């Protein structure tokens, strides 16, 4: 390369650098309106996974425990609303292969809100549950030791928060590897236990996600070019 070309090259590089220097590292944001395309977690589960899991699991579990809308009292003509299920939602346990970070609190709150909204449940406030566990120093997983259960129920009654059911939520995952791509199945399981009888009911919801190293891999996995 002659020095003249070198000089032109240097001038060209300087021009590019000048242009690039004008771009600042500004971050932008937008409000996602209902119905607009939401983001999909590219490396881990996000709202696209958790929200439908919660919706499906909670709705199906509560549908099985719906009481008749009104109850006939034998001695009189009046109709009374059915008693609500007094429910202690203990928490969400993350047993997936991923760190869900700030999503855990949101999953708890979403499930708790849906329980409250459904009208058939009367979930105890989380603050009482935390206070009860703190007072007794019982780990949620140890609540099924009979003595622990009795102690916890007694403490909650002392707080004016008696309950008939314990509810646990557990997130699990299973991973299937296919070369550089992998599929991860996410399952949310809600486990409802009657503290008097020990009977349990369980409802799971599952979503599978494929993670791909490239756009081509993703498109290929979706069936292109054979799919419509």
């Amino acid at each position, binding site marked *: 390369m002659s020095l003249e070309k070198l000089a032109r090259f240097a001038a060209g590089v300087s021009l590019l650098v000048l242009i690039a220097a004008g771009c600042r*590292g500004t971050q932008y944001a937008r409000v996602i309106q209902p119905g607009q395309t939401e983001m999909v977690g590219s490396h881990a589960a996000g709202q696209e996974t958790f929200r439908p899991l919660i919706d499906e699991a909670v709705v199906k579990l509560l549908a099985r425990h719906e009481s008749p809308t009104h109850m006939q009292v034998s001695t009189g003509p009046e109709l009374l609303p059915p008693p609500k299920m007094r429910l202690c939602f203990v928490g969400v346990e993350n047993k997936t292969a991923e760190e869900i970070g700030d999503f855990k609190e949101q999953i708890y709150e979403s499930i708790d809100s849906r329980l409250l909204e459904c009208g058939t449940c009367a979930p105890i406030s989380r603050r009482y549950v935390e206070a009860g566990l703190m007072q007794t120093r019982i780990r949620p997983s140890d609540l099924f030791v009979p003595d622990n259960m009795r102690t916890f129920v007694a403490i909650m009654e002392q707080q004016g928060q008696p309950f008939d059911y314990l509810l646990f939520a557990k997130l699990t995952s299973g991973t299937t590897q296919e070369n550089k791509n992998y599929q991860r199945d996410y399952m949310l399981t809600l486990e409802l236990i009657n503290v008097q009888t020990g009977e349990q009911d369980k409802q799971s919801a599952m979503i599978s996600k494929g993670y791909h190293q490239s756009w081509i891999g993703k498109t290929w996995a979706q069936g292109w070019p054979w799919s419509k």
Partner: protein
Amino acid sequence: MERECCLSHSHVVRSAAPAAAAGVFVAAGLICLSGCASHADRLAQVRSAYFANDLSAANAILDAGIKADPREADVLKLEQAIVSLSAGQPQQAEKLLREVRDRFDELEGTQLANTASYLTDDQRRAYAGEDYEKILIRALLALTNLMHDGGDAEAFSLQTIAKQEEIISAAGTEQEKNPKLAYQRVALAPYLRGILREATHLDYDDAERSYVAVVNWQPGFRPGPYDLERAARGTHSAPGNGVLYVFALTGRGPYKQEVVEVPSSAALLIAGEIVSAVGSQTVPPNVAPVKVPRVVRPPPGATQSVAITVNGQPVGTTETITDVSDLAVRQYEAVFPQVVARAVARRVVKKGAVVGAKEMSGLDKGSLAGFALDMAGVAWEATESADTRCWGLLPDKIQVLRVELPAGEHDLALAPQLVAGRPGLARNERISIVNGRNTYVLAVVPDTAVVGQVLVSTP
């Protein structure tokens, strides 16, 4: 060559004088631009005042520096945050740290494209922070937040973990091409998350995950396996007890020093000689060496750890959860070739600009005007100095001790354990432990005694 033949002698004479004058003018201008007091000088004064426990003097120097040079304002605010924290103002410290965190984020990705820095040196650009600083800002935000309301501490610890992953993944995924894959992780972040989740008495699974990260990232942290075991099978504390966490920022942390990159200087010398020999113009001789900043670990500090006594009974000494100096030095070494490459690129741009100016002016090789431009080029290159801006009041180590205590009032004593084996000047505090909850204490011990105040918080 054809173009050179077409140039008349008189044209060369006419264009040579302005070119030489321009060269002298440019050199003088650049000397003025880079003739300011270095960050290292100001930092030395700040460190000296701070380590002598003269927080107001340290703050005054920092205030003056922030006013004097906007390019240094961000990094000086980091120092101010540490001074504020030591002065018992965690809210002010948090405000400053948040401000700089956002500013560094804003500057991220713009640094390579700073024209002025190619024409002078890296000190002409706004300081965007080293990777370890960006991560430690978030870790210290978590710690600082714990010392007042604690409401955002978990979010900051999650941000720390996310930021270090973001920095590493942004540099590529291939092992051989991404030097940042070798970065050591900051175990303080998952540790803080672990202790916060444990204190809910509900989310032991989160605490367990966090302590797994602590054990993996800081294997030398001896309490790590016990914390993990407690999260997996135990409880936060026995009924009637609370937990005290004593955090100590010990020793003097890493800083940047200007060093001469000898291999790069030699390579440029040879390259310059070759181009001068075969080209139609001479390249400015490589008199000025290539200077680059290097993060160095200070000599071992006086304090090894802090011994904690509760109600007159020794309960243990703090253990290192994050070795800041080691983290900084290792992270910086991983990207040091890129720092050198940038310095070499800058030198090439300068040499290319001088040669280009001579070509465009149509100067003859070996002419007086060409010599003058070469001298101006040498002067230009000599104005370069390494960018030694850095967060200079970071500690050498972040240490912690966990103690379970009965709820109620206790007398706490913190005594720095000196390397020589004798205790340093102890500091006494009255603390309150709450049943089932955490109480946090933070002390900064850069030398043989606590600097500023000991912070106590039960958020």
